């Protein structure tokens, strides 16, 4: 049994210790937000927040998470970033979007007034194949109170 805290709730899961957090979130806890994209740390679609830091859940074994706070998009409760993504209609297929929202949330928590350069650099780990980039950038600017569409 492995203990972990997700979105403020304690869980005990019966998973092998090398199981990446991604699979525990999806299969044991039934959370859909974190997505499998590559399993290699290359795309960011599995991004969640652990102790305030954006983390690639496909690479992090669940065994290292005891005593740490995991947050997923399900636990954001409609934050400014989620609202801004809805306002900007910043999704096409949307598969990358939960990861984008999590990474942007982590950025704005650490740096509430990011420059355009900061935003682009920070998001660059996350891939989007639909080409929703401009809307995602606009959404992050909007969430940072910098207005939306350029």
């Amino acid at each position, binding site marked *: 049994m492995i203990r972990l805290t997700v979105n403020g709730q304690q869980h005990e899961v019966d998973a092998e210790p090398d199981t990446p957090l991604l699979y525990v979130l999806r299969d044991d806890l039934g959370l859909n937000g974190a997505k499998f994209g590559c399993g290699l740390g290359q795309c960011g679609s599995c991004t969640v927040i652990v102790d305030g830091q954006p983390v690639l859940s496909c690479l992090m074994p669940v065994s290292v998470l005891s005593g740490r706070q995991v947050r997923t*998009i399900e636990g954001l409760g409609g934050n400014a970033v989620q609202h801004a993504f809805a306002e900007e209609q910043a999704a096409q297929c949307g*598969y990358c979007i*939960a990861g984008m929202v999590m990474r942007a949330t982590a950025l704005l928590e650490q740096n509430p007034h990011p420059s355009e350069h900061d935003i682009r650099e920070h998001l660059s780990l996350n891939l989007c194949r639909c080409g929703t980039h401009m809307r995602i950038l606009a959404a992050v600017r909007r969430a940072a109170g910098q207005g939306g569409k350029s």
Partner: protein
Amino acid sequence: MNAVLSRRGLMALGGGLVVGFALRAEEPARPGSLKETPSLDAWIRVAPDGRVTVFTGKVELGQGIKTALLQVAAEQLDVPVAQIDLVTADTMRTPNEGFTAGSHSMQDSGTAIMNATAQVRGLLVAAAAAEFGVAVETLTTADSTVRAADGRSVGYGTLAAKLNLHVDAEPASTLKDPATYRLMGTPMPRVDIPAKLTGGPAYVQDMRLPGMLHARAIRQPSVGAKLLDFDAGPIEAMPGVVKVVREGSYLAVVAGKEWQAIKAMRALEAAAKWEETASLPDQATVLDLLRGLPARDIPVLTWKGEAGAPVKRLKARYTRPYMMHGAIGPSCAVAQLADGTMTVWTHTQGVYPLRSALAGLLRLPVEQVHCIHVEGSGCYGHNAADDVAGDAVLIARAVPGRPVRVQWMREQEHTNEPYGAAMIAEVEGAVDAAGNIVDWDYGVWSNTHNRRPYVGGLMLQNAALPEPLPVPPPAPIPMPEGGGERNSNPIYAFPNAKVVSHFIPEMPVRVSALRSLGAYLNVFAIESFMDELAEGAGADPVEFRLRHLKDERAKAVVSLAAEKFGWVAGKRGEGRGFAFARYKNLGAYCAIALALRVEHETGHIRLGRVVAAVDSGQVVNPDGIRNQIEGAIVQAASWTLYETVRFDRKRVLSRDWSGYPILRFAAAPESIAVHIVPRPGQPFLGTGEAGQGPMAAAIANAVRDAAGVRLRDVPLSAPKVKAAIGV
């Protein structure tokens, strides 16, 4: 209603078969997919409580089709959007609308639903008129209710309970006056976005059926690889493993949990031994190889006319490599064999053709396969969505009763999806002393762009199974849609032109439909060459295009993009590029103007401002159109700047995002603005793929302007740019 008597009307008059047949040729065709599925209740049903269900055979791919179809239905029916349930492709419930592809959804399904809902509204109003004993014209509709001038009203549900909608649609409908539209033409938030922003179940990847198992396939490492004997015993003993499935060279594993399935898959990959052959071509010379393969010549057009004497003649060759769809979410499917029926939840683009293909693979009658569309990650054409459904059914058959979820791994998606075909276009053209194009000779060489499965032989698994089914030969897609020749017919008015498509049957690499098919290279070639000829004629690229356009809507789009960009004729050397096309010369018009910088030390291209103008006919969701065009621009930028599938003689080497880099945020354009030309009441024009070709050419044209070099081989990668500049 239209005065033309319908076929149904004639039959009812007792015309019988002969009369009906004789008059049928005169009868106008029903609009959109009503042609194939005419019955109104195939598209729309109204429950006694007034709730409306609308059925479409098209699927949501992230293009926003659900939202647009709801807008159309709500508009024509006068029902609130929230009162409508939309059912998308399902082989037991919806019309068969083939594939959701080629930017056809609005033209086919949007048109069908617009007309069907308008006709149902007409029937509801007629029923109310009869009930109230008043004339139809005195009635109004709003909020699912018909109202009479004297204040009486009746709900749609009550009316529908007495109405038979199992009747064929009329060929013509009384549509609302576009000037009165409240929903169509107005931005509407996408109905699928909230779940995607909150972690709601939104994708087939998110399905969790009771008792569901997780499976992984172990792919053949190269085309035709043969699985040799090995001991799977230790793997079957691994924790959670339910079964190792082996049929010929087909290998898969099922486990209780997903991570267990992945570990077992890795163990099987390590244990399995394969006999491989060098079946792939030499990447360095593959374009020459393709150019030399036997080809079937298909004439696309020949124009002959009076023209001035040529004073300048140019010749060029444009090429593109194999490119990948590269979905962010690897393909996934869930299947369950229960009570003799194989049910498959799939993000295929065509549930009906896939049903036939899966039935073939399983040797089952089609009635015993049921395909239900559930959204997946964006696919951009025929990717692995169908093939993973092949895995799901083969594995589900081995564990009857249990639902099985299969998702491909990243390297499986990268190395096994069917790629977009490598292509070559060769063009020769001449201008006269007045700067008019007087001659145009164009040839394009390509494999097929459609290997979508409709029989079992086209599934990836077929070759691995012990008794493979016959594989149908590749076929070209005829014009006006075209495959490799899509958009090879120039939209410009040239007095003399010849266009030939050289269809190459032999496929050295597995290929199929990638967003915009041949249009990407043909538009890249035509629009690059237009700039080359403009330069030869000493003309401004925008003015040169307008000079050769006759189509007023085309001119309007070109002019709008130039104006909004602030294009100044004759101003050169600032990294500005322009390009234009009408998708397939049938769909949306799209012009793009952009600015970029070339970093001379590295050869990197930095995209600046991008301005697009688009004419999609009647607009349903303007924000949806903008989103699609923006997406096409960014995706085409990625294709054009970075992408090439790499392989050696045995295996694909582009196994993940490091081996197949795509555009990241740091390299996204500074800005994109999309301007829409409103065309109220005009037919819908497919938009989803309209930006792909123009973006590629606009980049190449701007590179020429910025750095003085003309690049004709996609991708315009940094090393190639650097080599061309020669610094």
